[in-house]
């Protein structure tokens, strides 16, 4: 977080939203993966 507001056309809120969306998808993917790993290990 060292770039500055004046240098970037996107707002802090836009960048944060976009990052949180990616983080959310990653976490959801991880939970789904752990679920399938558990099933695979049981098999």
């Amino acid at each position: 977080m060292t770039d500055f507001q004046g240098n970037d056309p996107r707002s802090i809120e836009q960048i944060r939203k976009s990052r949180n969306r990616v983080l959310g998808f990653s976490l959801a993917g991880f939970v789904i993966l752990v679920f399938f790993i558990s099933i695979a290990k049981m098999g």
Partner: protein
Amino acid sequence: MTTTSPSTAAPSASQTPLPADWRDLFALTKPRVMSLVIFTGLCGLVAAPERIHPVLAFTAILCIAMGAGGAAALNQWWEADLDAGMKRTAGRPLPQGRLDRTTARDFAGVLCAASVFLMGFAVGWLAAAILAVSIVYYAVVYTIWLKPRTPQNIVIGGGAGAFPPLIGWVAATGHVSLMPVVLFAIIFFWTPPHFWALALFVKSDYAKVGIPMMPVVAGERSTRRQILAYAVLLLPLSALPWWLPGDEHAGAVYGVSALVLSTAFLLLSIRVGLRERTGPDDTMKPEKQLFAYSVIYLFALFAALVVDRFVVL
């Protein structure tokens, strides 16, 4: 000798710092390098004689990718100052100031730790241990220790990039055998000519920041001869999986592909190895061609290994 020590540049109080963008975090993982890592890891896994559940195979490849990405991010965290001084790397997120070093370090740490533990719990602890060794090898042995100290950095450090097929193989079989060790050796011996071809045409960049790459320290002529020597060694080594004893050996599809691909690699290396730079206006076309071909070579060689498992001549 050049060493870097991470420092954090603080923004001035009057400016509002932007949060780290996910694209910059993704760029830290060196996605282009990672594609080769994922591919060779996948080939090691698919070429192995045993099969694992597709979900576990996917997890193994994901862990290899996360580990490689984490190690690459640690490399960029440590070398941000050096990267800023080189044209090739100055556009990366850290030298550009689009990301602060603490965020980069934390991101890298989480990726590395998550990759090893996920691999251990889901796939196996031997594969996880080799993954952990590969991360330490790249981030510490190569980046921090060897790279700023010796022109042999890429020779010894090349081991870091050679781990993925071994990890993929061990993920599938649960043990280390001769075949994945040979695959490791192929990438190990491929790395010096690959990087030195690059180093020949970006020599001034490395010299500027004091990294003792072979062309900078030993000179171009010596580097060219060494490229040739490694290409000569690579020819029989690449065909070795065809001649291995036991059930694990590759078939004729791989063997013939390896001989053809490695002969082309050797011919391009001869062109680089026996020439001299013609002057400051030299476009270094043969070196650029060798570098580009070396990437295609590794992709094609490992693709042939996989095809060989499914097509028997």
